[in-house]
């Protein structure tokens, strides 16, 4: 076994027999028996249809599923017949199913896939979620072709999503990536990405695998690492993103802590660049945009507003330690509104997020404690968004998110001031 490897012996042995490959598609999984068969079929069909002359490997890195997920990946037949207008293929993609070492989480699964990509010598790679119900073979083309044919290093997804979906992305991640890294990557934590072998090798050598990056933080870390490393980044429109019903065990606070923690950590790691960044640039886009019907998303406004107000009350002394007095006063003034008419001024939200970024930099409290106090405020912002966006169509939604992101850019001096402030 090689020294410094994170691969399990089963993966090592399989790699020996596979040898080299041109492209690799990775699917991290954990108890995804209901959907992973569909994902593997779509990926297989995409590889055969759009990259027929290339050697392809489908890698499943599983986190110890107890519902037979790896068996489904091994056993599912690939739809490469005439129904998909695919001529008899010369060769079918090879499958490699393995577990992974390290902290249980998506990031650790990715780490394994980065090493496999490097060992295979893959020129282009993609990763897709195992719980997707809307993936089609075209996704594989859209994620891999910009790398193989256009010289890009990183392909971010673009989806049509319900206006209430992706609220962490819309309220925190996209605006911050835009204002701090200067690129308008609309879905920085989309979950489905394409990347070059060169970038996979770069990821693998980073020493971040004991942090939140090993869990939900991997997506934002990959995107911001690509941006900070000046790799060529583009976006590909994939259509609707519909995935399996939410895991009831998934905890909002844990997701928020891991994603925000990873993003704030990246801002800290690249602070000079992030603080000096002014304005933002468009990112090249591939794919053909079309309208899609989206499933309705039920929301519980009363519960969100109640959690917001409860958080303001109970975390008062903690907020006093790092929120700017004006920000805190502004948030406190929001309490008492009726859920159906709940509002939060955009600039107040921008200053709140920047206060959190500065607080994690100053280590006012343990970072995880600071981030855990973000949940109620985020739910307040989400409630305000649900109220505001209820009459909006897709165009108005995008315009409003763009306007919020522009406020993040305009308020950048506030972040600089708070960042450089001495306690």
């Amino acid at each position: 076994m090689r020294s410094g490897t994170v691969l399990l012996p089963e993966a090592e042995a399989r790699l020996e027999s596979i040898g080299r490959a041109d492209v690799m598609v990775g699917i991290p999984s954990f108890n995804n028996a209901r959907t992973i068969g569909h994902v593997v079929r779509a990926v297989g069909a995409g590889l055969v249809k759009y990259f027929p002359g290339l050697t392809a490997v489908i890698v499943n890195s599983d986190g110890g599923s107890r519902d037979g997920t790896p068996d489904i990946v091994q056993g599912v037949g690939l739809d490469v017949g005439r129904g998909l207008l695919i001529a008899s293929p010369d060769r079918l993609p090879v499958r490699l199913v393995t577990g992974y070492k390290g902290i249980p989480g998506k990031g650790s699964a990715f780490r394994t896939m980065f090493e496999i990509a490097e060992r295979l010598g893959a020129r282009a790679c993609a990763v897709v979620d195992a719980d997707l119900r809307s993936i089609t073979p075209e996704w594989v083309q859209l994620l891999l072709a910009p790398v193989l044919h256009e010289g890009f290093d990183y392909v971010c997804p673009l989806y049509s999503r319900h206006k209430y979906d992706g609220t962490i992305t819309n309220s925190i991640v996209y605006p911050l990536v835009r204002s701090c890294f200067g690129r308008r990557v609309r879905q920085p934590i989309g979950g489905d990405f394409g990347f070059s072998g060169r970038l996979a090798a770069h990821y693998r050598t980073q020493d971040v695998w004991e942090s939140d990056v090993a869990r939900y933080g991997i997506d934002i870390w990959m995107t911001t690492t690509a941006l900070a490393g000046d790799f060529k980044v583009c976006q590909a429109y994939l259509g609707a993103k519909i995935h399996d019903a939410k895991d009831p065990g998934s905890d909002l606070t844990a997701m928020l802590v891991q994603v925000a923690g990873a993003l704030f950590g990246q801002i800290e790691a690249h602070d000079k660049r992030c603080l000096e960044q002014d304005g933002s640039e468009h990112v090249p886009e591939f794919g053909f945009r079309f309208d899609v019907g989206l499933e309705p998303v039920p929301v519980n406004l009363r519960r969100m507003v109640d959690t917001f107000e409860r958080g303001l009350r109970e975390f008062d002394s903690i907020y006093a330690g790092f929120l700017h007095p004006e920000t805190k006063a502004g948030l406190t003034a929001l309490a008492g509104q009726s859920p159906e008419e709940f509002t939060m001024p955009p600039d107040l939200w921008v200053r709140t997020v920047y206060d959190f970024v500065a607080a994690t930099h100053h280590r006012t409290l343990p970072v995880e404690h600071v981030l855990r106090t973000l949940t109620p405020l985020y739910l307040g912002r989400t409630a305000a968004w649900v109220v505001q966006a209820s009459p909006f169509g897709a165009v108005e939604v995008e315009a409003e998110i763009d306007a919020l992101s522009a406020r993040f850019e305009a308020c950048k001096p506030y972040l600089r001031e708070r960042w450089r402030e001495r306690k």
Partner: protein
Amino acid sequence: MILLQNPSIWEPLQRFLHRAAALFPVMLAVVVVIVAGVLLAWLLDWFVRTTLRLVGFDRMTHRQHVSDALRRAGLARAPSALTGYVVRWLVVVFTLIAALSILSAEATDTVVGALVSYLPRLAAALLILVMGYAVSAFIARSVLLWAVNARVRGARWLARGCQLLMAVFFGALALENLGFGRDVSLVVLAILLGGGVLALALAYGLAGRDLARESLETMLEEARDEDRDGLSHL
């Protein structure tokens, strides 16, 4: 006059006045030493605090994460202020010993001897208390954060309860280390832990059956609400 002419009254009074006259300069010296010592203590506190602030001690300690550790422990004072505070109270203690030495050299030796032999235990107890304060503050904050985000009712009381329990535990440890109140502290801890839990269980299960039922119903309803909330946050 009759009193002064009566030797049985006058002689003790004379002896008292002689002793008082002899003791007065000593007492005066004690008062002067204490007043001067306390003034010096406050002056040194101010001097140390100002000097450290001017040389950027707070910034240096911030860079070395000392200030962070203090803040995490819930100690709001700046490191310079904390150092000044320690200097002030050290000077006050030395002043008291010096004042005592004016009254009696033997007593001073005894006190200093006892203090010196007791110092390691005292330092260990202080360390336990400081650690206990930091740990209990950290745990209380962790519990509060978890409980509020999980929408647990009475989150603040839960956090305070945990903090109190930790404080009593570390207090008992410190007392045991000092060698007194050992049994008392253990009994207090046992009463708080065992008695408190039993009392809560009885109060909630018997006297508050309706409250328990309502709380469980509300929790279940909220769980159902959560299931209905179909937001995908990422």
